[in-house]
């Protein structure tokens, strides 16, 4: 009896998230970033309420103009009558865990607009251009009713391609003068692009960068994907209309993928990220003694590197109990909607 009002309040918080209450969504995102029992339960509860949002990712090297271009794209979407959420990921310090999240700096004009939700997310040690909580955060923003979610990665070098798993449309930015035509044929983020953008097209050599990208695509003609190369100047708002049209066209393509397939793909991304995180966490909990024991055997030649790796993984997985609460691992009730997460 006594707990009943509390339970009601929690249900209403979750309900308010579904109804689009921005403050509750913001709080939910913090919880998902932190992890732990409530976060796990919330992640599971959200799963039943997702699948309608489409994710447009912007990636590219630091300083290419991702935030500025997103700002211009968001302004264009607003002109076209769409509401839009932006998740902007910036790196955390590997030394202190702190971060300066400055992507919003370029998006100031949307701060007071109720039709735009912007959240800065620190990568918190995750490599790959995103944060490990991003798939769960996407679910929360999706469940809160935002139909278009723009995802900005950490300034990406060449290998931050994990975004391709979770986004519907990948926009890869380049800026003029960042490398020669050999850079353009290297493997990496250029390969995952659905749309290639040469930003800062008002700078010298922008034409050359466009030509380099064209010749790269020539070499990949066999893929039969039509990948547009667009020139923009986010600063001068040039080429934004064309970019928005190209993204809309890709979103229409993405809608041909069924909701179920789409949810599964994001779910797969989530599971893989979690698995990686768990292995990494467990490795960091390896005791000195266990490490020494295995190292000793390898350095004496008694164990091959491969066997030692297996032994290492077996050791860390047997030593530490699962981080997940019983409620999540062996739920008494199959319906996550009935689970309790303080939300």
């Amino acid at each position: 009896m006594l707990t009943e009002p509390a339970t009601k309040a929690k249900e209403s918080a979750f309900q308010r998230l579904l109804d689009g209450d921005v403050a509750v969504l913001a709080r939910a995102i913090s919880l998902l970033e932190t992890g732990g029992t409530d976060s796990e339960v919330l992640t599971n509860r959200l799963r039943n309420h997702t699948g309608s949002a489409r994710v447009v990712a912007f990636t590219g090297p630091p300083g290419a103009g991702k935030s500025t271009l997103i700002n211009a794209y968001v302004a264009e979407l607003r002109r076209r009558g769409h509401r839009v959420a932006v998740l902007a990921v910036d790196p955390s310090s590997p030394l202190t865990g702190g971060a300066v999240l400055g992507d919003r700096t370029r998006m100031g004009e949307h701060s007071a607009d109720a039709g735009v939700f912007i959240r800065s997310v620190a990568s918190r040690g995750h490599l790959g251009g995103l944060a490990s909580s991003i798939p769960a955060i996407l679910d929360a923003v999706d469940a809160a009713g935002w139909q278009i979610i723009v995802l900005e990665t950490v300034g990406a070098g060449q290998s931050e391609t994990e975004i391709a798993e979770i986004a519907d449309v990948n926009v890869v930015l380049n800026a003029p003068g960042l490398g020669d035509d050999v850079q353009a044929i290297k493997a990496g983020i250029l390969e995952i692009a659905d749309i290639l953008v040469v930003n800062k097209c008002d700078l010298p050599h922008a034409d050359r960068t466009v030509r380099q990208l064209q010749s790269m695509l020539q070499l990949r003609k066999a893929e039969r994907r039509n990948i547009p190369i667009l020139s923009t100047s986010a600063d001068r708002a040039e080429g934004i209309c064309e970019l928005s049209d190209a993204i809309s066209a890709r979103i229409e393509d993405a809608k041909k993928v069924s909701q179920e397939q789409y949810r599964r793909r994001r779910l797969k991304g989530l599971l893989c990220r979690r698995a990686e995180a768990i292995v990494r966490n467990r490795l960091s909990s390896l005791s000195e003694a266990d490490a020494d024991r295995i190292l000793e055997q390898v350095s004496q030649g008694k164990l091959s590197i491969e066997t030692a790796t297996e032994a290492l993984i077996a050791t860390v997985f047997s030593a530490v109990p699962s981080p997940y609460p019983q409620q999540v691992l062996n739920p008494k009730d199959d319906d996550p909607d009935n689970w309790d997460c303080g939300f």
Partner: protein
Amino acid sequence: MQAEQLRVLVTKIGFDGHDRGSRVVAAYLRDAGMEVIYTPPWQQVGAVVSLAIQEDVDVIGISSLATDHLIIPDLMEALRAADLGHVGVVVGGIVPEIECQALRDAGVALIFGPGASREDIVSQVAKLGTDGRKTKLTSGEFAV
């Protein structure tokens, strides 16, 4: 499970654009392990409120080197109206002694003047943020 990270908004309101101080403080807080949402100067009160909501911050730091601190009572009222009473507000920069009390009366938790040490800023902001978070989590809808 990691501890929940403190999130601090460092910003400037009003017409003054001298942002060196806010950048230095942002770097201090980052180096102390906090997540700092940094904005350029010239923010409006309404924008600061919606930033604080969307970013779910624990502390708002306002840098004021001219007369911008005179707008802060308006900000405090707007924060309370938006149900953000748990968010600690810190003012740094140059606030004439005679005007400090008015800011405190309006609800500003801490005021740092010229010469404030890095250690003081970091430790007091951390304490303010942690206390505010507790208030938020133990009251109202987010109570576990």
